[in-house]
């Protein structure tokens, strides 16, 4: 009932399901129960008891979603959580006992979590998963040792197993009422007459190997919030964004992961989404950093329409790496790598990914290809010393593209003056790239202009035999 949209508790409400050829009541709220509406009653019979009956259809997908949401909340008590649909969660708390100080504190903390979610929950701890499940269904108490397990389980009624009605009826006809009665039956006879799988379940409940599907929270993290009204207010967006980030960070912290960036999705009314991708220089799970990245970017975003909802999605996450902080921060003028990467993030957020880069050398003869932009900041690259153009000069400034120079009558280049350039060094012949379509054939010279600049010019032999400026010896 708690997985379905909330209704007022005064209304007579039931949840129904189609089973055994009729729509039957699965669950009834207190108001309904006081009128005598019990589970398993046909809906028509229930209408006879109450005319103003409010019926809701049972939705398995809602229940599953709710169960998964609850599993995500409990994952901080134990890393091994498994779902037991439709209504149970199994937590392996053996490893958490020391941290929390016993089963009682864990149960109290879990109760607080469930209460916050407005979920009624019952807890039971037992040495095996199946035993805990059966005990909680039968309303039994905690069993903390293997020796007491058989005794406690023995009193549990057969209903706790939720075996099919047919099987239970068969056992009942044999005069079997409790699990204890089952366990006392001869094993091979039980397996033959009732079924091997039920014998296996009995074994599992007493400690034989029980393989369960472990719950793994979806890798994609996402938080979402809807606005009551459409908004264009940046203050409101920033505010909501901060709250979403806080939720995201809480999620990251619980799962001990960090993210390399996140996507910010602005939903508009009948318009395409605005999606902004924000990436961090280094994966992080630090709220302050994410918030700053978000607010910086928000200033730059040009929203086409009012926003009705905002969601944040984090793609691939990785295990968090935490390093110890610096004790004497001020002794070192430059903070740790952190300060360096946070600068990168701010600049990227403001100017875009493309406009920020570092540099790398490429072993290549063509001058424009002898370097490359690198966006792997903060990583030390090993580069062998390059021998390309070793004996020749290279300019500190390179033009983004060679600039055609005007020529005098006897084909000598000029630069911003009538007088031809004075050639100082050269030529350095560079011929390369015929195999990949970027063929060049150039004679490079170092030349001096009338204004005193030292230029790197070349004469092109490939196309038009013209003179080009390619750099400055600044």
């Amino acid at each position, binding site marked *: 009932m708690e997985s379905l949209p909330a209704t007022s508790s005064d209304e007579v409400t039931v949840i129904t399901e189609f089973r055994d050829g009729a729509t039957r009541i699965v669950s009834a709220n207190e108001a309904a129960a006081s009128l005598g509406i019990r589970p398993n009653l046909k809906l028509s019979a229930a209408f006879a008891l109450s005319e103003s009956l409010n019926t809701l259809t049972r939705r398995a997908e809602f229940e599953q979603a709710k169960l998964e949401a609850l599993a995500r909340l409990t994952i901080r008590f134990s890393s091994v959580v498994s779902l037991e649909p439709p209504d149970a969660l199994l937590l392996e708390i053996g490893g958490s006992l020391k941290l929390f100080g016993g089963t009682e504190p864990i149960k109290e903390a879990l109760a607080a979590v469930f209460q916050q979610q407005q979920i009624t929950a019952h807890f039971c701890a037992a040495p095996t998963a199946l035993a805990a499940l059966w005990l909680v269904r039968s309303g039994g108490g905690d069993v903390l040792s293997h020796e007491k397990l058989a005794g406690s389980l023995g009193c549990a009624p057969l209903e706790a197993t939720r075996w099919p009605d047919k099987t239970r009826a068969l056992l009942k006809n044999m005069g079997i009422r409790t699990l204890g009665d089952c366990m006392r039956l001869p094993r091979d006879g039980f397996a033959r007459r009732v079924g091997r799988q039920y014998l296996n379940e009995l074994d599992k409940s007493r400690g034989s190997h029980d393989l369960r599907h472990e719950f793994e929270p979806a890798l994609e993290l996402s938080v979402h919030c809807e606005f009551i009204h459409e908004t264009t207010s940046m203050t409101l967006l920033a505010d909501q964004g901060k709250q979403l980030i806080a939720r995201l960070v809480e999620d990251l912290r619980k799962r001990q992961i960090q993210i390399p960036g996140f996507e910010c999705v602005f939903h508009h009314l009948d318009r395409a989404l605005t999606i902004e991708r924000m990436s961090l220089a280094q994966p992080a799970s630090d709220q302050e950093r994410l918030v700053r990245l978000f607010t910086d970017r928000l200033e730059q975003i040009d929203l086409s329409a009012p926003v009705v909802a905002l969601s944040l999605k984090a793609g691939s996450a990785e295990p968090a790496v935490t390093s110890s902080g610096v004790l004497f921060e001020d002794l070192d003028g430059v903070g740790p790598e952190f300060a360096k990467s946070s600068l990168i993030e701010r600049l990227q957020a403001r100017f875009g990914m493309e406009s920020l880069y570092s540099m790398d050398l490429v072993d290549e003869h063509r001058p424009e290809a002898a*370097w490359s932009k690198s966006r792997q900041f903060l990583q030390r690259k090993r580069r062998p010393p390059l021998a390309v153009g070793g004996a020749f000069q290279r300019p500190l400034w390179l033009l983004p593209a060679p600039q055609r120079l005007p020529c005098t009558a006897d084909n000598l280049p000029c630069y911003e003056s009538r007088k031809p350039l004075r050639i100082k060094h050269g030529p350095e012949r560079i011929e390369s790239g015929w195999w990949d379509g970027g063929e060049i054939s150039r004679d490079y010279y170092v030349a001096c202009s009338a*204004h005193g600049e030292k230029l790197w010019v070349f004469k092109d032999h490939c196309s038009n035999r013209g003179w080009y400026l390619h750099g400055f010896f600044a």
Partner: protein
Amino acid sequence: MSYETPCKTDKTISYIGVGIKKLLESPHVWRGFSRRSAGEVHATGFEDLDAHLPGGGWPAAALTEIIVERHGIGELSLLMPAMARLCEPGLPGSARGWIFWVSPPFIPYAPALSRHGIDLDRILLVHAPAMRCASLWAMEQALRAKSCAVVLAWARTADQTALRRLQLAAEESRCWTVLFRPGTALQQRSPAALRLKLTRDAIVTRVEILKCRGARPAVVQIRHDDAGSTEC
């Protein structure tokens, strides 16, 4: 003589003494020959230039303004020796930050930088959009982040307030900050600790020290012999 005894009593002398001392301590008074304020410096690698700069080098924690009329007249070679020294291994933490280029007019050519001894892993370059304050914003962020060893920036326009902010940020972050500006900036007053103007004449780069805290304006000529190490 006329200046012999303007103050007759000890009391007056001491009073004037206190007054001058107070006056000299005031941050509003700029003393041309004081070497006291030089602070930390990065040696320029050019002896002539070092001799004219207070402390013998680029002010390591202040704004240096370099006015260049044209590009490619030796403005980068002038900085290369000091920058290369900042890339040497085994330096203290404060010198290990980024070498941050903000909106350079051309591409700083990696092979040449590498030959000058610049560690390419330390280079961070941003092309800020041509909007008025983008470059200055980037500079200020870099300075406030305290993660840069050098900030080199090219800005067409920068008003007095912006320069003042940069100068204060440079002082606070103890970062060598160099701002290249066009010739029109000469009309403007500048709060920079050091202000130079570069011109080039054949093989000589003329460095005109226009303003310098703690030293006199001067002109230094730096020869760029082809055989010399100032060029690559």
